[in-house]
């Protein structure tokens, strides 16, 4: 058992107290149990969710025995510990997305010879293919906050579009966007009423970020596109707080940096969070404050985490050829032992 008291040193009183069941430190679940408790402390102090009890899914590229590069999915805890391989398909498997309860991962895999969407139950290890019965390559899945709908893009012929699929009822492919261009990398607002995505409808070399009300809104430009100047902005991810969207863009001298803008629409200020190397594929932590991304530095490529409040950057995973991370939602509450006394 772990007993925690939060002291207010100014007023000289105990503001919160909690008793938590913690497995033996030698056991597997020990670290994560402590992370859950520390998130509770963050909640006590700031009345906001923490991000310690969370994992990051991503893919790692490695040359197979035949010299061809494959990618498998991995997860790592938010503190960089507990690196685990999740898939072993001997193919390219990438673009993971967490279900809102963090029990499932959806992703793109080429293991059938085509790019298709799969859903993996992390508890049982059971995996299934999302059979849309639609010709074309299926990329970039993301869950609707209800956990029932999966959105992804389908690319066939010269067309592409974003679709949703009901994974609970295993049916009902529904088109949200599409045309003779590339729409991809959808991300839902936390209330599920809007979607942001990436599209090159303005030109093949100038992808931009769009936001759209669901189910049938008109796409609005969210990235700082200037007519005649193009720009290259991709990989949007909607903050779990709902107010901002992170993405990456070509900034100066062909460098790619992590950018954040308001989710309200065009004209919102764009903030740059990285200033060196190349930086891609941001994903928000459940606290809506930290962002994990792929950072390319002279010393190597890895997963980095930036604290959006302070701008400080730390390394999460290094020494691996990492790709497209996805930060999980909170992995549950700590196991609190309700006692006669203690905090609310």
């Amino acid at each position: 058992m772990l007993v925690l008291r939060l002291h207010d040193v100014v007023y000289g009183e105990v503001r919160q107290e909690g008793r938590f069941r913690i497995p033996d430190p030698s056991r597997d679940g020990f670290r994560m149990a402590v992370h859950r408790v520390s998130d509770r402390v963050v909640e006590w102090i700031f009345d906001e969710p923490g991000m310690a009890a969370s994992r990051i899914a991503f893919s790692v590229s490695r040359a197979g025995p035949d010299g061809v590069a494959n990618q498998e999915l991995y997860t790592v805890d938010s503190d960089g510990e507990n690196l685990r391989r999740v898939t072993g398909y001997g193919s390219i498997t990438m673009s993971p997305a967490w279900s809102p309860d963090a029990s499932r991962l959806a992703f793109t895999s080429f293991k059938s010879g085509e790019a298709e969407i799969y859903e993996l139950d992390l508890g049982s290890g059971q995996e299934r293919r999302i059979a849309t019965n639609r010709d074309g390559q299926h990329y970039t899945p993301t869950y609707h906050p209800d956990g029932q709908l999966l959105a992804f893009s389908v690319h066939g012929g010269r067309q592409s579009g974003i679709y949703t699929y009901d994974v609970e009822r295993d049916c009902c492919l529904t088109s949200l966007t599409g045309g003779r261009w590339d729409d991809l990398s959808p991300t839902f607002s936390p209330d599920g009423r809007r979607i942001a995505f990436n599209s090159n409808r303005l030109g093949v070399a100038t992808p931009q970020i769009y936001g759209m009300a669901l189910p049938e809104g008109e796409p609005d430009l969210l990235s700082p596109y200037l007519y005649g100047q193009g720009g290259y902005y991709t990989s949007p991810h909607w903050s779990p707080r709902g107010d901002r969207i992170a993405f990456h863009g070509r900034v100066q001298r062909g460098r790619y940096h992590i950018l954040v803008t308001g989710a309200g629409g065009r004209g919102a200020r764009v903030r740059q969070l990285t200033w060196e190397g190349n930086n891609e594929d941001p994903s928000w932590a459940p606290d809506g404050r930290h962002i994990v991304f792929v950072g390319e530095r002279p010393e190597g490529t890895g997963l980095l985490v930036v604290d959006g409040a302070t701008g400080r950057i730390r390394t999460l995973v290094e020494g691996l050829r990492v790709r497209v991370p996805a930060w999980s939602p909170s992995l549950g509450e700590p196991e609190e032992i309700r006692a006669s006394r203690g905090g609310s």
Partner: protein
Amino acid sequence: MHHRSIPLLLIAVTVLLAACRRDPPPPPEPVGPSPEEIEQARQDSIEAARRAEEEARRAEAERRAEEERRRLNAERRARGTLAEVRDALTRMVHFEYDQSRITSEAEQLLREKVEILRANPEVTVRLEGHADERGSTEYNLALGQRRAESAKEFMVGFGIEPSRIRTISYGEERPLVNQSNERAWAQNRRVEVVVLSGGESDRDSDR
């Protein structure tokens, strides 16, 4: 004054008459070439025409021979040993940065593939689109797909059945050259052609 001028005129006439009488009229100064020259020119002209004709015939024969050689080459390539066919069929097609447009160089390579596919109706292929490492991982999947589709569209435009051409994209995930410079990038922006069926038995006999 009047009288003096008349003899002067007379003298002038006499001189003229005298001149006429004294020398026999010379043969008229020839205006054009002499008959010999004319004959020569005629012969020359005939000769030139003959030569030109011969030249044209030779050029035409050469052109025909060249055409025939090309046709035979194409035919040999198209119907040749699998190694040759495979070589021409699987020669990579490259693209410009961030583009899926077929360049004129790519067009020639694709036309060659069209010929081969026409001559080998049992062959089906997969076009694998690739992007260089710059830009976004996910966006590059779409870009690679667009390149593969653009190559397919070109071949279908020349009459190849769409069902014989599958497409896929590996984005930036399977570079040809694992380096970060312009030359490597140019090589990595490509469509590869993989023979799916229609060549297996030949491949065995080829070894």
